[in-house]
């Protein structure tokens, strides 16, 4: 995959972002770092993707004036990344509209920046009740519904502030950051080997995607090439992860529109798959199976046969359930036109991943910049133009079938050989990037190495960063009772962005 990395000044930083945007490119991630120990002040980094590959920009910032030009007018999705960078590193985006805190609640004071190197991660401040200036909507009959952080179901914590008239949503404002547990600071206390375990726990439902992205980042700085068998098995694990998440979502999306039958059916299929994962690879969610250099599992002929046998059943069931969902008037009534993000809006706001593809954003890393083994699989990207709940459901159905096709192809010609290559030492002050199309969208790991295989800075980037702000738009004009099904149809990660 072509990746360019360069150091730029503030004017180039903005103009390259503008050029990327005009060329149809998008922002993958933005993060900052503290380079004081290297006598280089601070730095802000942006990863952009264009039709030709990834462009990673580093803009050095002085100690006296740790500020950089705002790019949220070019890429709206940058706004929260910039606010998080201000909270964690004290680096400010000059000219931005919104300077409210984002990750920080009331567990540390505003003049403290946890990702600065002079901040000891063990420092504890007294926790106070957070005061956050929500945008209030006023007018006759407008009122607010606060929801969370503790939610009614078994889901992650976050706060949603609805401003409504009657049942119609005028505005939704999200307040996240509740699961901030210091992941990025924690990485800096680990070496490259220890980091793999933490990478697999950034967002548990995407553990394979993160572990693979982390492995790629480590392999790129150490010049390691994993053996072909390991790469093939990684893709099998990643597609299994995609299938089990999609099955779970399809069931939950049935449940959310009162089709308990759908939940029961899909969660039987999901459990069957999780048990197979456990039998074949030793973990239901495949945690810690992708490691830098290769994989920590293998698949024998018997295991291969079990997967193929299960897929024969799974494919039959998924096709049958798709017909039932498609022909169920009550289900379609709830899905169609609900939570719609038009392709134009999706392009403007930078909607990505599965939700992006359901809104006409034809982007899938496995198809655009396929790494091995995807380069010989000719991945069929699934897209839809309607951008509603129905479209996100349809994309999931198609992707389950496509993932099964891919796994069959891989298993058909599974290379023999080693499972792991030895990983050498990493040079100091190197940047390694890992970029994987997880089930939710593209996961990026940006790794800056320190001395002796230590991690100087690591930014894991979940596609939910881009997509959470779009959810606020998706619910406008829908009714409050449709929020659960709209939210589920995106199924974004809280822990992946709170870090």
């Amino acid at each position, binding site marked *: 995959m072509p990746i360019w990395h360069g150091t730029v000044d503030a004017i180039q930083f903005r103009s390259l972002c503008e050029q990327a945007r005009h060329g149809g490119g998008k922002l993958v991630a933005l993060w900052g770092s503290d380079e004081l120990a290297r006598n280089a002040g601070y730095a802000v980094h942006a990863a952009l993707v264009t039709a030709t590959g990834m462009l990673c920009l580093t803009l050095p910032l002085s100690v006296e004036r740790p500020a950089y030009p705002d790019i949220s007018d070019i890429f709206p999705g940058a706004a929260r990344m910039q606010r998080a960078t201000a909270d964690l590193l004290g680096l400010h985006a000059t000219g931005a509209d919104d300077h409210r805190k984002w990750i920080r*609640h009331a*567990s*540390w004071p505003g003049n403290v920046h*946890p990702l600065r190197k002079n*901040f000891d*991660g*063990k*420092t*504890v*401040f007294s*926790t106070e*009740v*957070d005061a956050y200036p929500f945008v209030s909507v006023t007018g006759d009959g407008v009122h607010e519904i606060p929801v969370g*952080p*503790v939610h*009614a*179901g*078994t*889901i*992650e*914590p976050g706060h949603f502030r609805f401003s409504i008239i009657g049942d119609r949503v005028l505005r939704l404002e999200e307040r996240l*950051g*509740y*699961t*901030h*547990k*210091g*992941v990025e*600071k*924690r990485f800096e206390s680990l070496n490259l080997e220890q980091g793999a*375990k*933490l990478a697999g*726990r*950034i*967002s*548990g*439902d995407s*553990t394979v995607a993160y572990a693979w992205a982390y492995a790629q980042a480590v392999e790129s700085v150490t010049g390691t090439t994993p053996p072909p068998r390991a790469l093939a098995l990684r893709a099998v694990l990643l597609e299994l992860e995609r299938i089990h998440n999609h099955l*779970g979502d399809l069931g939950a999306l049935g449940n959310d529109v009162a089709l308990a*039958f759908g*939940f*029961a*059916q899909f*969660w*039987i299929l*999901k*459990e069957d798959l*999780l048990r197979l994962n456990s039998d074949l690879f030793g973990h*239901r*969610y495949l*945690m810690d199976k992708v490691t830098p250099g290769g994989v920590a599992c293998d698949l024998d002929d018997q295991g291969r046969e079990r997967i193929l046998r299960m897929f024969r059943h799974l494919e039959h069931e998924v096709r*049958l*359930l798709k*017909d*039932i969902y498609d*022909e169920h008037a009550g289900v379609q009534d709830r899905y169609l036109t609900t939570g719609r993000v038009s392709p134009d809006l999706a392009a403007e706001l930078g909607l990505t991943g599965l939700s992006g593809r359901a809104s006409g954003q034809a982007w899938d890393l496995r198809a655009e910049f396929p790494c091995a083994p995807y380069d010989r699989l000719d991945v069929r990207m699934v897209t839809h133009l309607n951008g509603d709940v129905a479209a996100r459901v349809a994309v999931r159905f198609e992707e389950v079938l496509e993932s099964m096709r891919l796994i069959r192809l891989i298993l058909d010609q599974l290379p023999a050989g080693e499972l792991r290559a030895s990983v050498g030492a990493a040079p100091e002050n190197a940047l390694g990037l890992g970029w994987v199309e997880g089930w939710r969208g593209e996961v990026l790991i940006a790794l800056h190495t320190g001395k002796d295989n230590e991690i100087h800075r690591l930014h894991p980037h979940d596609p939910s960063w881009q997509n959470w702000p779009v959810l606020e738009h998706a619910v406008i004009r829908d009714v409050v009772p449709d929020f659960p099904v709209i939210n589920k149809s995106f199924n974004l*990660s*809280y*822990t992946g962005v*709170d870090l």
Partner: protein
Amino acid sequence: MYQIIKQILKTGIKTEGPPQADDALRVEIQNLQEQILRHVGRALTIRCVDAGSCNACELEIQALNNAYYNIGGLGINFVASPRHADMLLVTGPVSRHMEIALKRTYDATPDPKLVVAVGDCGCNGGIFAESYASCGRVSNVIPVDVAIPGCPPTPTAILQGILTAVSRRPSTDTTP
């Protein structure tokens, strides 16, 4: 409708019931079910609180609702308010941003209440440990009756933990 009914009939009952003599897992689950019914008797209501987990523990708690574990069939239900709950099922580590919300949820749960901490992080802070952002284990924030290790613990382990907590519950039907 015909397709749905046909599919339901074809699927049959997946809930893991009578054990096969040689199937260790099934025996375990059936024993669990019997014990849970003995202790719980009628019903147990659980409020889940994700206090900062990586969401893998949530996946396994959700799996308890699938037809194989069928936790609802045991009289155990997840409820939407701590006011309705007998038990809090808490995943961790407890982030400092969730500390107040967790304490308030605990306070809002009527006595006598049980707290079960789920997962390695809930037990000991796990890989996230304690820091400026993480309080670590659940028992650093609220009293915990039972802690279930695992990363994430399997649905069976979670059921076992719930049972352990319930069987420890002080008898409430003793009349003076």
